[in-house]
Each structure stands twice: as C-alpha cells, then as structure tokens.
C-alpha cells in the first residue's frame, strides 16, 4: 500500500468516524423535543395519565428539572465526537492541502452554514444546563435542534454535490451557487442524510436510555429509517435519469449503494425487534458507507467537477517528504486515539438512568 493510499484511508476513516459519531449526536439533537422526557416509561407510582403518555410512545420533551433523555444519552461522548471533524480538517490540510483549499472555498456557503450550525448547537448543548428561566431554556433547546438539523442537511447536500460533481470556473476554482445547493438531487441527499442521522440518533438513544425512552426511540427510529430509505430511492431514481450522481466507477458505486440500503433495512428490522445493539451497528454502517461511496465511487477523483475531470488524489496529496514525516506520528497516534476513545466508550457504557451523572 502506498503512503498516499494510507493517508486517503485515514482521511476516510476520520470522515466516516465523524459521520457515525457526529451523526448520532445530530440525530439525538433533532429528536430531543420528542425523546426528551426521562420517564417516558411507566413507573409504578405514575398515574394513569402518565402511563397513557408513555403508551403513546412519545415523551413530553425536556422534563421540569431541565434534563433531556436524548441529550443525556449522548452527553459523555459529545466532546469526543465532534473532534473527529476537526481531525478530518486537520489531516486534510496536512496530507491533502490542495483538496482543502479547493473543497472548502468551493463549497463556501455550505461550509459556513455547517459551521454556524455546529457552533450554535455545540454551545447550546454545553451551556443549556447553566441557564435559568423558561425563556432561556426555550432558546437553548431550539438551538440544540437547529444545531443538529442544519449541519445534517448541509452535509447531505455536500455529499450530493460530491457525488454529482461541483461546477468549476474558467480559472479552475470551484464554486457553488443557489441553483446547485437547492438542486433536486442535492436537496434529496440533504433530506435523506438528515433522516438517516435522525434514525441513527434514535437507534443510539434506544441503545442507551431507560426502557420507556428506548421504546419510544425504537418506534421513531424505524419510521425515520424507512423515510431515509425512501429519500435514498428518490436520489437513485434521479441518478438513473441522469439528474443525479455521476460516478467514475459505476459498478463499485452500485454495490456500495446496495449496502447502504441493506444496512438501512437491517436497522429498521432490528429496531422493530428491540435488538438495539444490532440495530445501532446497522445504522453505523449506513452512516459510514456514504463516505466510502464518495471515495471509492469517484476514485481517482477526490473532488470531481460537474463538467468532468476534477482534482485527483495525486493532484491533492502533499509532497512525499511531508507524508513520510506525518506517517511517523500517525502510526503511533492513531491507534492511541482509537484506544482512548474506546476507553471512554467503555467507561460510560450501559443505559442512562436518573442516577447517571448529568451535566449538560
């Protein structure tokens, strides 16, 4: 394996890791108004009204103490999850500097929207517990949802544009206009991704919450995954009629797309049968695979132009000396990262309860 391929694999790993981990954060954020109530499940001392509420499958949002079950589920992992995006950007700058400049400035309005959403959402998650008063709580909770939905939709549009190809100016620089961002295929991808992240978030909440919330999350998650599948089918249809993805490697792309669909179906199936671990594994696959679809389906292009051609791996990659230097650090640091991230997942395993430390 050449150094280039190794760095490409690491870049893909970081982006896929971010989609999986950030994806369930954004999903849980979007679902926080619906899966918020910590005691959505029937409690022995609860009255008939409360039990009926739990029976309807959907909690009543954030509880009176300000706690939110969906956000409690992601809380201990939240800070460690967002880092994957920053590491992706850092490694892209270090190993693929010529992609970094073209991709980020080319997709300028989308990246700005993603960042604005992330800043507001991340700040809201960390600070909502610090404020008093109903009005402040309302604003923070709205920002939590916005900070999940806006990046989710925009990342979907980015994926759509990368699958379709990005318009290029005469001087070789990339740029997107409103017509590209709000094109039918890009928008469909945006909606599909938001639904997928929401379903993935529901699967995570099902895995980690108290039985009552988990039941509601399973039901919601199954519906969302089915809807994501429908949106994905529409994207495929658009591609078949030439208004969607234009891949350099059709065969690989079809196989990968079929795997995404299979993962979605598996997630839906296992959620319906309360097999939470398997369901979450399936939704993890469904969120990670689109990264592979971009990488392998467009190979050798990392950023393909809508008129054909684009920036290849060779164009984008840093000089050999830089790569060699970085790999020396990489072989030590990357396994270490996986190790301590794994430790943090292990340390906070198990379902949340009312005795679980709550901070956010």
């Amino acid at each position, binding site marked *: 394996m050449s150094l280039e391929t190794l760095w490409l694999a690491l870049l893909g790993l970081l982006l896929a890791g971010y989609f999986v981990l950030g994806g369930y954060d954004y999903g849980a954020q979007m679902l926080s108004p619906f899966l918020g109530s910590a005691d959505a499940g029937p409690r022995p001392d609860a009255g008939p009204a409360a039990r009926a509420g739990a029976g309807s499958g959907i909690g009543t949002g954030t509880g009176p103490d300000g706690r939110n079950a969906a956000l409690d589920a992601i809380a201990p992992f939240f800070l460690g999850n967002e880092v994957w995006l920053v590491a992706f950007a850092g490694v892209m700058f270090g190993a693929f500097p010529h992609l970094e400049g073209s991709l980020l*400035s080319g997709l300028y309005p989308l990246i700005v929207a993603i960042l604005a959403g992330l*800043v*507001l959402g991340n700040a809201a998650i960390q600070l909502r517990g610090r404020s008093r008063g109903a009005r402040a709580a309302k604003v923070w909770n709205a920002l939590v949802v916005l900070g999940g939905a806006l990046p989710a939709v925009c990342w979907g549009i980015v994926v759509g544009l990368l699958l379709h190809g990005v318009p290029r100016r005469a001087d070789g620089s990339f740029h997107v206009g409103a017509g590209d961002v709000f094109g039918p295929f890009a928008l469909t991808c945006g909606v599909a991704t938001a639904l997928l992240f929401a379903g993935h978030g529901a699967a995570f909440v099902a895995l980690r919450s108290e039985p009552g919330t988990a039941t509601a999350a399973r039901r919601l998650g199954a519906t969302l995954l089915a809807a994501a599948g429908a949106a994905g089918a529409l994207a495929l249809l658009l591609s078949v009629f030439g208004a969607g993805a234009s891949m350099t490697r059709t065969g690989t792309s079809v196989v990968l797309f079929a795997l995404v669909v299979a993962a979605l179906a598996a997630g839906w199936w296992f959620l319906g049968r309360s097999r939470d671990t398997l369901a979450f594994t399936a939704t993890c696959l469904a969120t990670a695979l689109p990264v592979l679809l971009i990488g392998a389906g467009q190979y050798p292009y990392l950023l393909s132009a809508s008129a054909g051609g684009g920036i290849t791996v060779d164009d984008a990659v840093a000089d050999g000396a*830089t790569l060699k230097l970085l790999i020396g650090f990489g072989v030590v640091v990357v396994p270490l990262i996986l190790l301590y991230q794994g430790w943090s997942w292990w340390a906070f395993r198990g379902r949340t309860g009312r005795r679980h430390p709550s901070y956010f």
Partner: protein
Amino acid sequence: MSAADLARLQFAATTSVHWLFVILTMGLVPIVAIMHTRAAYTRDLAKRAVRERMTRFWGQLYVINYAVGIVTGLVMEFQFGLSWSGLSKFAGNVFGAPLALETLIAFFAESTFLGMWIFGWGRMRRGIHVVLIWLVALTAYLSAFWILVANGFLQHPVGYEVRDGVAYLTDFWALVTNANAQVALAHIALAALTTGGIFVAGISAWHFAKGTRETELFRSSLRLGVWVSMLSSFFVIIVGNLQVPVIEKTQPIKAAILNGTDLAAAQAQEVAAHGPGDYLPWTSWVKNSMDLMTILGNTVSTITFIAVFLLLKDLLVRKRWLAYLMTAIIPLPFIASVGGWMVREIGRQPWLVYGQLTVDDAVSNVSKGSLVVSCAVFIAIFLALAVTNWTLITRFARRGPDGAQLGAGDPLPDDLPGAGGADEKQRVPAF
C-alpha cells in the same frame, strides 16, 4: 472593503474572540489540576471536602469557559481552507503538517479526556480521575505548541525550500525549533497563567469583600491565584523581551516600529529584499498595541508583587477596596494579550508567509457577497456567544461553590424524605 479586507476582518475577529477563551482555558486548567490533585490526596476528611468543593467550583468556571473555546476553535480549523486557499496552495506541504499534528496529538485527546473528566465525578476511580485532568492540561499546552509552530512558520518561515512556486518541507526539526515559535509559546503560556491566576485571585477576593463564609476555600484559592499570577507575570515580561532580538533579525519593519528607529530605512531594506512595494503595516496600531500591552503587563506584575506580601494575615482582603481592586484587574491580562497578538499579526503585514506570500495573493476566489454574509454571521454569533458565556461565568462565579453543578450529586426526588422510591440502584453502604 475588498474581498481580502473582509476575509482579514473575519479572521481577525473570530481569532480574537477564540483567543479570549483559549487564554483562560490554558490559565485555569493547571490550577484546577493542582486543586484536584490536592483534594484527591488529602487524608483529613473535612479538609478534603473543602478542597473537593474548591475543585468543582473552579472546574465549573473552567468548563463553562471551555465550551466557547472549543466551538470557536472548530471554525478556526476551517478558516484557512475557506478564505485563504492561496496559503494551502503555496505552503500546504509545510504549514498543514503542524495543524494535522495538533488535531491528532493534542486536540483529540484534550476533548475526549475533558468529556471523561466532566462525567467522571463519582464514577471513576479517584486516581484515574486526577490523571484525566492532568492529561487535559498537558494536551492543552501541546495544542498551543503545534499552533505556535504553524504560526511561527508564517512569521518566520524555516525548514523549507521553494520549487516552482510551491514550498516543500525539507527540515522538520528546524520548523519545530523555530525560535520565533518557541519564544512566543513561552510568552503566551506565561500570559495565560497570569490570566488564570488573576481570575482566581480576583474572584476569591470578591467573595471575601462580600463576607463569604467559605473562608478556608477562598483563602486557599486566593493564595494560589496570587502566587501563580505574580510569578508568571514577572517572567512573562522577561520572556516577552527575549522576542526582541528574534524580531530584529527577521522582521525589520516590525522591529523599526517597536524600537522607534528609521522606518524608511527598514522599508528600503524590504524593497531591496523583495522588490518594489509598500511593506508598511498600520504602524500606529502596532505601536499603540505594544504600549497597551506593556503598560497593562507592568501594572499587573506590580500589583501581584505587592499582593503576595499582603497575603500575610489576609491583609489583601481585609480592606474592601483592596479586594475589589483585585477583582477589577481581571480583564487586564485579556486586553494585554490581545494587544500582543495585534503587534505580532498586524506587524507582519502585508505578508501571510513572511517574505514569500502576501495576504492579498492568498485570499480565496470567493464572491464578495458570500464573504459579507459569512463575516456578519460569524462575528454576530461569536460576539453573542462571548457575551452569553461571560454572563454565565460571572453568574456562577458570584453564586459561589454551592452553585457548582459540575460533579454535583443533586438530591433525586426519590432521595427526599417522603418520596419513598425503591429505585434501581439504592445506595448501599460499602464494606
């Protein structure tokens, strides 16, 4: 305003706001780590309780501050690619490496371990919990190291050669040991410790002025804060002066402005080296920022030097106005440090990579409309977050240790008398 001006405004404004939170993060985390260690290894139960409350109180303020530091930092990572794609085209092979290493070696660990520390109260073994906060402190400073290596390359590029208009990395060791980066790193680390020390001392003094009953907790905090800020504000000035010879050797224009020597001669020297052009930055900004930093730095250093002696018998907080004076100087190190960055960054204009790439040549091909919108969006969000965050820090600082939510075991409804809850895990005395 040209597109380049807008991109510069966006970068300057967002970086400055980001920095105001970074400096307090760096200043507070070692202090919190020291407090946590002392608490964890105190035998006396009553004393340990006080020290643990102390850790949670200051840890709470640190964590609130960190929230905005991390979210604004997220934006910084993308700024180079968004608005300055000329930089990655020219210097990507060199400049990208320290940024990549910063995320992989430092930031990844800092954020993961902080998440574990926040949620680890009552869940992790005491020793491991203490190790976590030290890892957070260590990686915060490692982060600063790599960022300064990257910034040092822009100030004084080393360890590279240019072939066909593109920079290639030739000597990583030279890049890492760049004097411009290392002296600046020491300077800002000391500035951060000064900021953290003054913050702790100022808030403790305020509580004394208000007649707090937590005298043991705040006395101990006050001592730590005053000593840390006294020592670091003394050395921050010395290390700051060590930068002068480095600047004189590598940045003639900046040196001429700071030393008040002949600017025309320096300009002529630059023209001889880089061809015709105007190489003068906004000289009055550089000069005034330098004066501001120097005056504030010396003020803080003098006050903390005197304050150390007034720690005797609590003299510092017996007179109310003295206590309030300690509180009033909390903003000074922040303002001084922004002044310092102004000198460093404005002083190297028009260069992005000194002597190699100008700011105007590096700006991305992005429409002016997009830049106006993004500039307005980022500045509005950042300012709103900064104000909100400082309001929250102030509120929690005033509330005192009882208000700390970090690691607090709130009494659950079931724990209250009369609620009668036989919930899952009843606390059982451990044998």
